């Protein structure tokens, strides 16, 4: 049987005018739904002086208020829920900020829609029923594992739900069961590649032929290195828990940007300072509007990712708009080893542990893995002339950071007043990873 070129051809290759019409119809209904069922939205819209009847189609999208991460924190845990809780079947969650995580709710239809998006990404990467898909993204609250797992089921692939870690077992299953498609973070793909090479495997003896890698920034040179080591074609995938999870957009064989699943999501680019929509082709902040989601339908959600949209036709035949790989952030969020980290989280821990909030974060890259170092000033009242006592404080701080962030930095205590103060522009983050080309 010939391989499928698209998972849902009628949608993925729908003429642009028809997509716009579909989006307009869905938007009008979605706005009515949230205005009626989510008091928080109703208040936001009332404050902005917008009524559902003002929204006739996507040309009126700009009239709607933005939703930001702070709105999600404020409405935690149920304030953004748009259906009765009894209609929800699952939650997923982000890696969390200052103690309050974002919880996204899903109805069964929401999960189906999300898994369809992942199935489209898998077919676009050349997968089909006869493939064996190794999902080495984390499973659990993180959307990576569950999303690709569901998409792989929909395509009909044999799915290996490996989750992340335990590299030895990953390699055993990959080689014994002849996995052909690998889904994980790019840094883990690079690590698996190095481990396979050390064990004597070559691109010819590694069964993989494609990989779908996302959840963290990666460069063209990293893509090339992963492709050469594993003997595969590497595809990018993009998504965020707030909007659904991986598969909001995905790369096709042309690899000239990621197709946004426009039947489900409207992508906009705005000026991050003024909030004004920018024309296609201009660089700005990416904003998403969910058209079909029932439980957690965010409208005009500001991703803080800086991107460009490209509406020129793609030779793969898909008509959906392509977004560039994010080129940076319009806030101070860092993605470290696939986990979202905000400086404010680190400040909270430092204050809780009795340290001054004077710190510096250094991010680097060794063997395609992030290094994460936090330099903290030792306040006089924490000083002790016993190394053991200081080491205990250092360890307790390290444990608290790990528990807050989900990943553990190396902690270095430095002398007081050696880290630049905040009067001048304090350099809190030194990122030497060169993640953007």
């Amino acid at each position, binding site marked *: 049987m010939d391989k499928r070129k698209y998972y849902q051809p009628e949608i993925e290759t729908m003429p642009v005018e028809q997509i716009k019409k579909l989006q307009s119809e869905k938007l009008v209904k979605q706005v009515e739904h949230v205005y009626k069922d989510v008091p928080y939205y109703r208040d936001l819209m009332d404050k902005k002086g917008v009524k559902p009847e003002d929204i006739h189609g996507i040309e009126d999208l700009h009239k709607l208020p933005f939703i930001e991460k702070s709105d999600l924190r404020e409405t935690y845990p149920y304030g953004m829920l748009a259906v009765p809780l009894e209609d929800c079947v699952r939650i997923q969650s982000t890696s969390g900020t200052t103690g309050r995580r974002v919880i996204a709710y899903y109805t069964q239809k929401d999960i189906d829609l999300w898994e369809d998006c992942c199935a489209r990404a898998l077919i676009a990467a050349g997968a089909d029923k006869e493939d064996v898909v190794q999902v080495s993204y984390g499973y659990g609250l993180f959307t990576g594992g569950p999303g690709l797992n569901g998409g792989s089921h929909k395509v009909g692939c044999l799915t290996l739900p490996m989750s992340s870690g335990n590299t030895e077992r990953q390699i055993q299953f990959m080689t014994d069961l002849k996995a052909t498609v690998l889904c994980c973070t790019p840094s883990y793909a690079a690590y698996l590649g190095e481990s396979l090479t050390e064990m004597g495997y070559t691109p010819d003896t590694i069964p993989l032929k494609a990989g779908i890698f996302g959840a963290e920034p990666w460069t063209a040179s990293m893509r090339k290195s992963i492709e050469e080591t594993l003997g595969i074609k590497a595809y990018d995938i993009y998504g965020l828990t707030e909007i659904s999870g991986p598969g909001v957009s995905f790369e096709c064989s042309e690899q000239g940007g990621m197709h946004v699943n426009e039947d489900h999501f409207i992508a906009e680019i705005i000026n991050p300072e003024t909030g004004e929509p920018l024309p296609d082709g201009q660089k700005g902040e990416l904003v998403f509007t969910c058209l079909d989601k029932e439980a957690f339908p965010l409208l005009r959600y500001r991703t803080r990712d800086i991107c460009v949209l490209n509406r020129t036709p793609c030779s793969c035949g898909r008509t959906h708009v392509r977004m560039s790989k994010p080129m940076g952030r319009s806030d101070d969020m860092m993605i470290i080893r696939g986990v979202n980290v905000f400086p404010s989280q680190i400040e909270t821990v430092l204050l809780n542990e009795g340290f001054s909030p004077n710190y510096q974060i250094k991010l680097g890259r060794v063997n395609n893995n992030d290094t994460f170092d936090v330099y903290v000033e030792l306040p006089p009242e924490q*000083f002790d002339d016993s190394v*053991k006592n*200081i080491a205990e404080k250092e360890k307790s701080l390290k444990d608290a950071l790990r528990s807050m962030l989900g990943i553990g930095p190396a902690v270095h*205590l*430095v*002398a007081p007043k050696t880290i630049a103060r905040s009067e001048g522009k304090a350099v809190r983050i030194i990122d030497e990873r060169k993640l953007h080309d």
Partner: protein
Amino acid sequence: MGIKQVSVFVENKKGSLHEITDLLAKANVDLRSMCIADTSDYGIVRMIADDAERAQKVLCDAGHTANIRTVTAFAVPDEPGGLAKALNLLESNGVNIEYLYALITTATDKAYTVMRSDDTEKAESVLLKSGIELLDEAHI
């Protein structure tokens, strides 16, 4: 009993120690002993000085983190086994030593030792009972 020890936190980088000794020299502080405990990132410099308060003030004024602690100091006969006997006593009485270092002395027949233990009171009474001489500020 005991003597005052000044401790200062220094980062493990070039010139840190020199800066400390330089500051003390300019303030005319006389050092009787110094001991450094180091890790890969930082070190703790412990000093016995002729004027602990002045030493601490000079260091703190220059932006360093420095504190003063009273540590146990004792004199043992300057002969083989002199220190071993004292440590044996402490161990058999359940006193754990955090750190220990030698102190310069002008006496020729005595070796002076500075020590921090997990139970100062007990350590001092054990040593005294065995006839080991404890030192105080007057000896410095």
